[in-house]
């Protein structure tokens, strides 16, 4: 620093009471508190009500689910942070499942090669999204809607509606293995979440992602190449969809043509929003996103455990989403009022 001002007249004293209540206030100003608390409450309530809920088998099952939804929720959130949206995550996951099994079974490739090739294709799709959004200034919603449609079509075209059986054992190793009772996909999800957390909180590129989402023009004029950040987030999102596809394929054991992943993008968006990710971009943290996914999974699974007719599941999930959005709005408003 090479500048110094004369002693600034410190007359703009902080108007708010310090000390007392500041811990509470800081907690209230942390957007993720609500979701995490909700997760704990729902888990404890269900565990108390049904002992089978907190049983190892059920927890492991939830772990598998969590990994699938969580991976695409993270990818989705990264895109939302830049101020965009990715509607293709679910459809792309379904297509990845089919592509991998097709490469493996029909084209006779070894599983590893099939996986790599699928990841490359998914990465390219993400790059097309990113370039269309940044270079051609196309609306993210529309761009990814195209992929959403095409990807489902590709799935059908490849399979003609029949599942692909006979995939290599590598997939099962990835999708069904337990490490010390913990499902491998769950561990991989945690690893991805930690990497994403590190990227967003601890790297300058991550900070720039927030800046681009928060105010693209300010970021540009501050010398941030926002386009690169945006493209890389779309690529990451698509890669994570394909990665989640590996877990799904491994778990199911067949390349299912019956609508795997369809509608999952909405769960991913819901998890992000419940976790405090702002749909206008620039706001949200990994902790919240993970908690949002966990909450959705707890509710989903809890309803099954409580043997509530699965036809009602979506009503409950929708209400939770509505509640989350409302709570977030109220919280943001109270913070804005206070400042």
């Amino acid at each position, binding site marked *: *620093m*090479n*500048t*110094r*001002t*004369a002693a*600034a*007249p*410190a*007359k*703009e004293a*902080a*108007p*708010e*009471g310090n000390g007392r209540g500041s811990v509470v206030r800081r907690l209230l100003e942390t957007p993720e508190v609500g979701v995490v608390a909700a997760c704990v409450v729902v888990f404890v309530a269900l565990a108390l009500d049904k002992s089978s809920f907190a049983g190892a088998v059920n927890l492991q099952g939830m772990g598998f689910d969590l990994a699938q939804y969580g991976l695409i929720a993270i990818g989705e959130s990264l895109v939302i942070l830049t101020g965009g949206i990715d509607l293709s995550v679910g459809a792309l996951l379904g297509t990845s499942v089919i592509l991998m099994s097709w490469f493996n079974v029909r084209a006779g490739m070894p599983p590893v090669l099939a996986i790599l090739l699928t990841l490359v294709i998914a990465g390219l799709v993400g790059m097309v999204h990113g370039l269309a959004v940044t270079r051609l200034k196309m609306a993210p919603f529309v761009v990814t809607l195209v992929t959403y449609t095409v990807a489902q079509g590709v799935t059908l075209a490849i399979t003609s509606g029949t599942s692909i059986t006979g995939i290599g054992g590598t997939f099962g190793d990835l999708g069904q293995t337990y490490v010390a009772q913990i499902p491998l996909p769950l561990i991989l999800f945690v690893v991805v979440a930690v990497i994403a957390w590190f990227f967003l*909180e*601890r*790297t*300058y*590129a991550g*900070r*720039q992602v*927030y*800046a681009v989402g*928060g*105010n693209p*023009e*300010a*970021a*540009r*004029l*501050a*010398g*941030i*190449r926002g386009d690169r950040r945006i493209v890389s987030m779309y690529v990451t999102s698509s890669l994570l969809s394909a990665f989640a596809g590996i877990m799904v394929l491994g778990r199911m054991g067949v390349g299912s043509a019956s609508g795997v992943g369809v509608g999952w993008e909405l769960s991913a968006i819901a998890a992000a929003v419940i976790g405090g990710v*702002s749909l206008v971009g*620039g*706001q949200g943290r990994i902790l919240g996103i993970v908690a949002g996914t966990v909450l959705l999974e707890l509710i989903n699974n809890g309803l099954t455990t409580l043997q509530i007719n699965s036809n009602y599941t979506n009503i409950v999930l929708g209400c939770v989403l509505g509640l989350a959005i409302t709570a977030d709005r109220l919280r943001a408003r109270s*913070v804005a*009022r*206070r*400042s």
Partner: protein
Amino acid sequence: MAGGGDVAACLRDVTKSYGPVKVLDIPRLDLERGQIVAVVGENGAGKSTLMGVLSGTVTPTTGTIEVAGQQLVPGRPDHAQELGVAMVAQEFPLVGQLSVAENLLLGRRPESSGTTLLSRTVFDRRGTRAEAKALLAEVGVTQVDVDRPVERYPVPVRQMIEIAKAWGHHPVVLILDEPTSSLGPVEAERVLALARRHAAAGGAVLFIGHRLDEVQAVADRVVVLRSGALVADLTPAEATEERMIREMVGSELARADLAPPSTVERTTTLSVRGLTADGLGPVDLDVRAGEIVGVAGLMGSGRSRLLHTVMGAQPRTGGEVLLDGAVFHPRHPADAVAAGVGLVPEDRKVQSLLPAHSVRWNVTLATLRRISRHGVLRPRADKEHAAGIVADLGVRLRTQEQPISALSGGNQQKAVFGRWLAAEPRLLLLDEPTRGVDVGAKAEIYALIDAAAQDGLAVLVASSELEELLWICHRIVVMAGGRVVADLPRAEFGKEKIMSAAAGSRTGAGTGPEGKASA
């Protein structure tokens, strides 16, 4: 009860508190018809709250407000509007995608339309256009196509459109919130004339101003707010600049302790030759290290474009720029930042701030790469770096983690300066560096610019406030129609000289209202 005779609006015991903090406390204030009442005060003094209370956007904690003898239902902007309060806000609530005409008649129908059910339901395009044109002509804006979307016009034109929109409501009380902050001198004068006309026609004007010379020129009465309280009610004769500043800041006086700019001459930092871009140039310009060069000109003269083109934020179509003797051709502002150039843009909210994010994030934005190690940010270094910036610049805040939007305009702007000074640039481009900043913070920002220049920073300042340029610059270049039309050293500074140069290259005479509003 005050009758509707000559009191247009009166406030009685109006207070507004947010929690324990009282931000406004006005025991009594009458706005008389035929009078322009200017309100001055530092940022956070309660000016915006006062306007909000009067225009119904802020619900007062206690007290009553009467407009034209009728009591205002608190917190009802539509009711205030109905009673005849029209407000020209600093941040324009215009619908960018709609045309100028549609914006001007937003929320009401043209007077020419009939009252049949059909004409009340169907949008009257022709009537709207005609009335919009008439309105614009009335406020003195020419060469604006009423069919073009508002977002295609630059900020100064939008400001004039906003004023025309308020004018179209035929208000009793016209509230102008720093109406000239984004305007050049000619347009500003037009707005002041409009305020006088409104008063002369029997209306009341509440004029919020940062430019004290304007306040002096226009006000029939000057009300000074400090910390929400009404501390002085001055007649035009009493309202000298010194007096107003003294009342505003309390005891300490802001302006006298500013050192005159130094005249150090060093190597040429920026050398621009034949620079052209959309709506700009060709421009030749040199800025030496340690030199503060002002860019004056009417709105639309290319001041901002020059800065943005140098920064690489707007594509260059021709010409050459040398930075410290090396060819400098940024294709993205990132190139410029890497080469040691910084830009403080005109519109703080839209172009500078991440409003929802913390002060820390905002001040470190341009130096993120520098404070990271192999791309990794270390939280402690990050916080210390930000704390250093905030402390050096005297930004007043509760904690560096609070959102920057919670700071006053002056402190936000200091934070933006801090962002760039931390990058230790060789050249700093400033576009309206003190727009929407109170007097006290202004003086501090001038001191910052001065100190940075003393350390060898080359500074190029574009501003629509002539006093500002006359005060801080070593040299002023005047732009008109995208070109530099005059280059004045400090010895030749003079308002008239700059004004006539700015208006000179146009067809109209220097004093005539010919400054046009071209995009």
